[in-house]
């Protein structure tokens, strides 16, 4: 009878980007087993109402949450990745790109937009984990750099929403240098005295953590998000030790001093704008006035 449960194929492995992590269909089941209708979930900021589980979402959803009436102008929407190294592992990078574009309908792993949040102009960049694990290659670096340039030009705050496994291996050292490129731009943003809010969402690891994700005037996160430099599996392999409970969760990272606060997704818009008003010494806006 155990044959019912036996795997027919041995060694099934699913690439990270193929794993399902966005709600599809009519129902969503949270990791604690709570079931919620997709429509209800969307209305609740993609947070499971019964257990407050923050479902992984992408740029489309975050823009919807943060920009007033979901109105914004997308910046540099046409930038796409090249395959300068002609990289090939078990699959050609050029084919991986095509497949990812087809599957997600996205051009690459970050989208950047300019619009109003609670009535005031802002530039937001948001990564998409669905696109090759939210990996940072030349396009991600360039789009973030240009978005920061745009924020400097418009003299508006910049919000970066990270959601990434790290640098894109298929662009090797070119992707590594995006850490320096984006950090240099952030130094220019700082020089212009414009606020930089870094929102680290589930997951934020590797090269992303080792650059813009940790460089905010404030670094903030959502409950339970995984944030770290080396991923948990790597740390476990390197140390041979059992990892402490809650290791590398947003709560852990905040407790060790690297996050300013953790916000429920429903409060993100209010809290980000409150910080902006406070740090710029402007009157505090309320949602009613801006709506």
């Amino acid at each position, binding site marked *: 009878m155990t044959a019912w449960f036996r795997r027919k194929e041995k060694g099934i492995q699913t690439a990270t980007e193929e794993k399902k992590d966005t709600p599809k269909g009519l129902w969503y089941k949270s990791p604690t087993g709570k079931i919620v209708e997709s429509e209800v979930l969307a209305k609740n900021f993609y947070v499971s109402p019964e257990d407050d589980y923050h479902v992984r979402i992408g740029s489309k959803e975050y823009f919807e949450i943060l920009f007033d009436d979901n109105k914004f102008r997308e910046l540099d929407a046409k930038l796409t990745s090249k395959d300068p190294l002609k990289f090939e592992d078990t699959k050609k990078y050029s084919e991986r790109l095509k497949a990812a574009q087809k599957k997600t309908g996205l051009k690459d792993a970050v989208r950047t937009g300019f619009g109003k949040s609670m009535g005031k102009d802002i530039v937001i960049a948001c990564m998409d984990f669905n696109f090759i694990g939210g990996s940072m290659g030349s396009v991600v670096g360039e789009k973030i750099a240009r978005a920061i340039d745009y924020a400097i030009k418009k003299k508006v705050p910049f919000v970066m929403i990270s959601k990434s496994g790290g640098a894109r291996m298929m662009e090797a050292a070119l992707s590594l240098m995006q850490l320096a490129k984006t950090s240099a731009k952030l130094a220019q943003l700082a020089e212009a005295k414009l606020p930089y809010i870094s929102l680290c969402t589930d997951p934020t690891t590797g090269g992303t953590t080792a650059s813009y994700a940790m460089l905010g005037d404030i670094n903030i996160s959502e409950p339970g998000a995984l944030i770290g430099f080396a991923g948990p599996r790597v740390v476990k392999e390197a140390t041979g030790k059992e990892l402490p409970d809650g290791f590398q969760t947003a709560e852990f990272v905040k407790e*060790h001093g690297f996050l300013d606060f953790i916000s429920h997704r429903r409060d993100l818009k209010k809290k980000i704008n409150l910080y902006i008003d406070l740090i710029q010494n402007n009157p505090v806006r309320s949602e009613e006035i801006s709506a």
Partner: protein
Amino acid sequence: MEYLDFELPIKELEEQLDKCMIIGQESDVDVSETCKQIEKKLADTRKEIYKNLTAWQRVQLSRHPNRPYTLDYINAICGDTFLELHGDRNVKDDKAMIGGLGKIGDQSFMFIGQQKGYNTKTRQYRNFGMANPEGYRKALRLMKSAEKFNIPVVCFIDTPGGAAGIEAEERGQGEAIARNILEMTRLKVPIIVVIIGEGASGGALGIGVGDRVLMLENTWYSVISPESCSSILWRSWEYKEVAAEALKLTATDMKKLKLIDEIVREPAGGAHANREKTFEVVKNKIVAQFEVLEKLSPKELVSARMDKYAQMGVFNG
């Protein structure tokens, strides 16, 4: 001397040469002609092997046990003017990241670099050249101190990566590296970076942003080691040679991609075959680069540095 697998023909010839010379000393037979022949063959073999190195062989050379490490360079270049400085003023003194002041000629420099050990005990003491957050913070403290007194910075990179561990994560490895990268993009003194061995990922870049980035001929620099790349993308450790090729991690590739500024040639047989010569070459390169950079104002320096990194990346549109 230790030998890598592809260096074995060299070892064999060196042994033959030794034997030949011993025979010459111990007997009346004139072996000078034979010795000369072996010497020539040795030089030709060495040349031949080093002319056609694969990417993976260069990775092996970058980790050669006899290869000079950061402190070897600094001690050779500065002699007894080198004054090592310790500690990050927060947690502890990271032994995998060293730094201090030293002179080349009349000019003071702040030297910073990852340090590896030369035997089991010292390798552990140096954590295999993998720095923790406090190492990066110590490096930053020294850089800021150099900036304050207008002293140029020289960074030697030789690391298999930043340390991965529970404590490293608790103390913010990502933040420490990120902070260094950002501060280095705007540091108001010249920064010269030399890759002397392994240049792995954020752990390398954490002290690797500079006005000039030089790579020794037999070193590698990339986003990940070929072994880890093989394990992640091929899901097996067997593809490290292929991964090394695919990552385009050699000095020649990195120069072609415009991600480094200059390749530093090593003596025949690699840096470990003639350490003194290597030290001299590196010292001269540092001096030459500094002479160009010292003419720039801090503003020109920082803006050129930022522009250089802004140019990096290849994309459509």
